[in-house]
């Protein structure tokens, strides 16, 4: 787990300010098949290595970020605002 997370709006901030939702998966279309929805709601890869997750800067700017990190080395590659897009900023 990272000690600090690079919020694109607030800079490097302690992880205690954030809330983690889990894997940054795209929401299927409403009419996507049941299998796609089961996968989205319940199934997770739990990879050993690079992982993109939704993190909420709860005690900061209150923006949702996609944080790219490594579950093995605990490196944080960077983060980007989920809505504003753009490059992942280290």
């Amino acid at each position, binding site marked *: *787990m*990272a*000690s*600090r997370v690079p919020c694109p709006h607030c800079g*490097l901030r*302690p992880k205690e300010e954030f*809330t983690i*939702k889990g894997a940054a998966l795209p*929401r*299927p279309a*409403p*009419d*996507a098949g*049941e299998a796609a*929805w089961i996968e*989205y*709601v*319940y199934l997770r890869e739990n990879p050993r290595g690079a992982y993109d997750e*939704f993190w*909420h800067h*709860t005690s900061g700017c*209150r*923006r*949702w970020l996609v944080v790219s990190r490594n579950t093995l080395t*605990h490196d*944080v590659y960077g983060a980007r*605002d*989920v*809505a*504003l897009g753009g490059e992942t900023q280290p």
Partner: protein
Amino acid sequence: MSSYRLPSGGLVDRAASLAFTFDGKPMQGFAGDTLASALLANGQRLVGRSFKYHRPRGVLTAGAAEPNALVTIGTGGRTEPNTRATMQELYAGLEATSQNRWPSLAFDVGAVNGLLSPFLGAGFYYKTFMWPAGLWEKLYEPFIRKAAGLGRATYEADPDSYEKCWAHCDLLVVGAGVTGLAAALTAARSGARVIVADEHARAGGDLLSTTATLDGLAGPAYADAMLRELASHPEVQVLPRATVFGWYDGGVFGAVERVQKHVAAPDPRRPVERLWRIAARRAVLATGAEERPLVFGGNDIPGVMTAGAMRTYLNRHAVAPGRRAAVFTTNDSGYALAGDLERAGVEVAAVIDSRPDALAFPGLRARVIREAVVSDAHGGREIQAVDVWADGKRERIAVDSLAMAGGFNPVIALACQRGAKPRWSDAHGAFLAPDVDGLSLAGAAAGVTGLAACFESGVRQASAALSDLGFRPTPLATPVVEGDVVPAPAPPLWMIPGVKGKAFVDYQNDVHRADLDLAVREGYGHVELAKRYTTNGMATDQGKLSNVNAIGLLAKARGVSPGEVGTTTFRPFYTPVSFGALTGAHHGKHFQPVRKSPLHDWAARRGAVFVETGLWYRSSWFPRDGETTWRQSVDREVLNVRANVGLCDVSMLGKIEVCGPDAAEFLNRVYCNGFAKLPVGKARYGLMLREDGFIYDDGTTSRLAEDRYFMTTTTAYAAGVMTHLEFCAQALWPELDVRLASVTDQWAQMAVAGPKVREVLQRVVDEDLSNAAFPYLAARDVSLFGGRLRGRLFRISFSGELAYELAVPADYGESVADALMQAGEPFGIQPYGVEALGVLRIEKGHVTHNEINGTVVPADLGFARMVADKPDFVGKRMLSREALVAPGRPQLVGLVPLDPAASFRTGSHVLSKGAAATLENDQGYVTSTAFSPHVGSTIGLALVKNGASRHGEEVLVWNGLRNEMTTARLTSPVFVDPANEKLHA
């Protein structure tokens, strides 16, 4: 007891005499003493009893690794057990108490454990106490807990304060010995931001106990000069008394600074300890090396200590170890001590050197016995003699103190806390750590020996780190060092022949050499297994002195190299950290702050009894004179709402403003029911689902303008809903132009309910409140008190009565509530609390999170028709999956006991009539209960299989925990006004 203090020398201030007590006995020390040096100066060698065998123990080291000299400091709420006397600075009035002895330190009953030692060897817990299991709790554990142990924590509250802070630097230097100071000064001169943390009160490390000179200056003077220069650099912060205990991800280090643990009466305006989180771009570990004890019989008898510690007490604290000492060494470092002892006037009976080829040490008068070992030390509460084996012969030499110089273990714990594996170096005779992830080791921590080489190493590692960061460091010139004894690497001595007595490896956990032999014999020779089987290294000292010796002995027993045995895992904390420091300011109300509604004081003035719900203090009921039970008050409040009118504080409901051109579409997607067509000026009850189809939260949302909505959430889920909405707006549908703002604290909100409410409210609200002008579910901005205030009025009802909720700016809450009470007086208005609110809503069959418990979908609660046929909303797809539409789902019903005098409890199970009381026969469970003054009995809401079609059925309500069985009838969940005539009145 005679004094062992030398008449001169050392870094103690003989002008500043400090009185302290040990087990109540008055003693004297000096400023500059540790408790350990002061005890030794007073001749107090017996300091504690060991963990398991209650053996007499004294001071073994002069630092953080101390396993024996653990004492309790202070009294009352400031009682601090297991304090290492070697780390505790002496102060006037210090009260120290020895531990793990009864009735006294000198005469200890528990020492009989030593006689039982054949039964208390390694693995004894597993072997002896496996069977019968019942005896473990009753007999064995209480016995062991009483017999084996450390100090006792106090039950009194800690009167002192603690704090936490962050710090940021380019270079963190851990340890301020010669290496660390050289590294820090290199960084300081290059302009970097530097933090230097040292666990001792005074920086300098070995410079404070060496007799060598640097550029002609004595060690302490040289250290002080370096510190003076560091202090002159504004970007340098030196933290004494600060132990860096952990290395965490992203270059963050944890440190605990003991700000006021060295004073009798801490300044209440400052913390006693401060927890630092230090974000460092690079770090240099200059943590030095720990001297290895030697594993011979009786190596724990008071008077035996490591050579480095003896040298520190002698040179720094001016305390002689005794009158006649011996030094048992495996390398040249023992000779530095021997020389210093002789110069201080202590007779050195012998230097026992394990090497056959030890060189003669110039100027030393002592007899040197080469290729020799100490096999046993003798004595009870103090050492009296040693057995020396040389040439196959044993010689007993009378001594009153013995130094052990077994070589050095670099202190590499921090470097290995994040997965790096130490490697064994035959050349160094020690485990070394690799440089990893921006952390490098320097000086003795990297296996370097000698002051000059350590200095160079510090400069070199700091320069490398700084160059990495883009600084241009100018190397410091290494001082000319004279008189330093630089030990050449020597092979470690693990297995000492001829040992008769207990030879301790782990002093703190009383693990001796035979325990490790046993572990290997019984198949637990793997280092991690041996650790757990013997408990070696599992005490509060984390095996600082014992782990490497244990590895060496395991290696010998298994016939492999120490590298092949490997080390156990290094983890934070390096030394124990107090709960106070970890907690910081987050305790009591700082941990769980009180949230008060804007109407809190209003309710308090009216005698409300408050209940904690989450952080909120909510008014529960408002007792009146003559009411002796809460039920009397609640029944009265309920009946008054049904008959007249009542006022309830609902300010703690979550309130969120949803604004923007796409607000309607947004709400239409976050609620399962339709919101797109909600007209301006209207409120609507909404159900929010989770993506898995289950209900998440409910509440009323009102459209105040074309692009502005006012949402309410349940009190408990206010924060969660806000976060959820932010996720929906930002992650799911960023194309929608919508803004969210939490306004929970901006509004005081009152539910005013009862048949007479309109007359009351009309006296405060300027607009026409007739049913035609302000119908059910109207929601509008209104003018109050003839235009003096604006508020928001919602015609919504949780109680089932004709009711409104009035929101006014928070600061006006109290006056508006008072005005309403005044206006309502002729109509019999009374305040009511959340208990009455609960009864009213159960009577009306309204759900809360008792029913919305994460397992129900809208249809289960009778809301099937609310679910709108629209393209998308959160939870839409999963709501239609098989299990959520299958027959036999739980459905909301009402429940009444057949006998009105009978009752049942929330959580009870519902069984079909005549069914046996088993979980297999479970038909559902009771989610809410209350005594209903309206019905005249207990009523309940329940989730029962196919419940909606079972109204009228007689069932059993079973509470298996309390063995209660009540016959009851399933009913409609709506007990009051099923036709909603009151609502629309």
